């Protein structure tokens, strides 16, 4: 039995969202795990729960795609196009998500852009069909948002984490 932390409804084992109020029951735990991992990186509890936003000239970006063990190191270009390569329309993204199930996960050809600023990185959704989520929040297309170390990015349904090195 799993008691909902929001409405105290007793849900059967195996239920992911409270059948009474819709509260995520398992996603919450997954969320807590990733939160914990972040805290471990940033020192003791209560100090900083967010990763640093500072991204120096010499830093590089490493991406961990969910369900794929091998991390991907991104090029150090000023603009990095994320999407899926498509021969018909001649789109060649800097990071091709096609090998990671881009099509099934609804990744657009030109999905999002990571842009290198003075000493920050920003993420911009390029008006993609299924949207770009940053830490669970959907981005408004063409509005840049600052990336932090350890952020979770979701293109359509493809989830990955970004780390600064």
């Amino acid at each position, binding site marked *: 039995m799993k008691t909902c932390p929001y409405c105290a409804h007793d849900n059967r084992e195996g239920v992911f969202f409270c059948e009474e109020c819709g509260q*995520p029951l398992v996603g919450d735990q997954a969320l807590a795990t990733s939160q914990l991992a972040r805290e471990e990186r940033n020192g003791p509890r209560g100090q900083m729960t967010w990763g640093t936003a500072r991204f120096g000239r010499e830093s590089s970006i490493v991406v961990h795609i969910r369900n794929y063990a091998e991390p991907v190191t991104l090029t150090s270009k000023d603009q990095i196009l994320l999407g899926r390569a498509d021969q018909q329309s001649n789109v060649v993204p800097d990071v091709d998500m096609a090998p990671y199930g881009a099509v099934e996960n609804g990744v657009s050809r030109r999905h999002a852009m990571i842009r290198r600023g003075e000493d920050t990185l920003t993420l911009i959704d390029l008006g993609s069909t299924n949207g770009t989520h940053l830490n669970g929040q959907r981005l408004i297309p063409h509005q840049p948002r600052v990336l932090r170390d350890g952020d979770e990015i979701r293109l359509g349904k493809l989830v990955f984490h970004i780390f600064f090195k």
Partner: protein
Amino acid sequence: MDEVSRNLYAILGVPPEATQDDIREAYRIVARRFHPDANPNEGADLLFRDIATSYEILGNPLERARYDRSRQKFKDEPQYFSLRVTPSKRVLGTLDEPQVLYLLLEVVPMRRNAHKKGREARLNLTLVLDHSTSMKGPRLDKVKFAAQQIIEQLTAEDILSVVSFSDRAEVLIPAEPVTDKVTLSAMVSMMRAEGGTEILHGLSAGVQQCETHLAPRLVNHVILLTDGRTFGDEEQCLALAEEASQKGISISAMGIGEEWNDEFLDTLASRTGGTSAYINSPSAVVRFLNDRVRSLGRSFAERLQLSIAPDADVVLESVFKLLPSPQPIDIHPQPIPIGTLQHNRSASVLIQLQMPPSTKTGFRTMARLDVTGDILAAERMGYKVLSDISLEISESPASEEPPLAILDALGKLTLYRMQQKAEAALLEGNVGEATRRLENLATRLLAAGQEDLAQMAIVEARRVASTNMLSEEGRKTLKFGTRALLALPEPGEE
């Protein structure tokens, strides 16, 4: 049913070179799982009939030899589609109470194996259009325009018929190949708004037209478009739909505006494997109809039917179709029509099962799934694929993250169900509960970034609290809005 076209060995779960003893033993095992005396589930009964037939033939060496000989021509048959099943947990923990398990079933088209020079599916399409008085003005204008666009899309290889109805039905265009597009368009423009709405007349005339050109190599489909509620003939309409479905016709139902009965159109569509949709503005009619016809043109297999036979102690709780278009589906009667398999994407459904208390560790079977469909390009009728689902039960399963696809679909499905529950509570006169559920829904919608729908849920919660009623517009927007969250756009489109 023609036994030769089916792989009876797969039904019993033995290889073709199995000995008679193997076959007897395999039959004993599956019969124990699915015999009606042992298994009360509806799907099991259906499946057992297949098993019994298979054993009758394979269990008799003479019959078996005859079957093997006539089966030769299917020896090199390619695989047209395959099933991919993802359970919400790979390993279940032992537990002395029931637990819920979800299965994501994807039917994956193997397009290469039925290629026919890029030809898209050919349609035998019937439009059944409401021209009652309430359609007057922009609604009817847009419907005419949409119908004319559809005529433009079709070719001489497609069959089209158009029926217009109010309290009577009129065959505007009898079923025929689309050759003289100008004349057909002109006939559509003759529609005038008059009379009431009686769906049965229109629907039966429409099904009749579709039947005249019924062919297994075609997509036989009726699209019903209405803005009104039909009185007294709903049961007859559903009976007609079921009859049509058995003949191989699927029906999609689209409602414009607020008046029409969504429960009824949902049932109508789900019983035939079609889809239902809510069109809130006249201008959206054109897009909805065109999208529908375009996706019919991408059909790879038609008349897909799913049977689910849980093991005796497992309960099938619900099935929801996710792709190609989100649709709640009735689990009775089986087999469940799930409609079209497009050549460019999988069809998928989410199945919810309740597992019994489990104390014994080790592997166990939990259900058998069976999908049958007609492959259009290969003109292969009744192509069938089975999948037996088994899982491990362990005392201390490693913690695993649930598959993202299931989590994602369930998160959204939960929103849809919350709206449904609020509506059900209100129907029972339970205003407090309905209000609370709508407020909860608003909270969840906001968390999901759906601000417009959340706003709508708040407004409706207040309305329910003060007037004990939902507005029709709000109710339909929430219902079809939360359902639409489950939709994914077609691959390859931006």
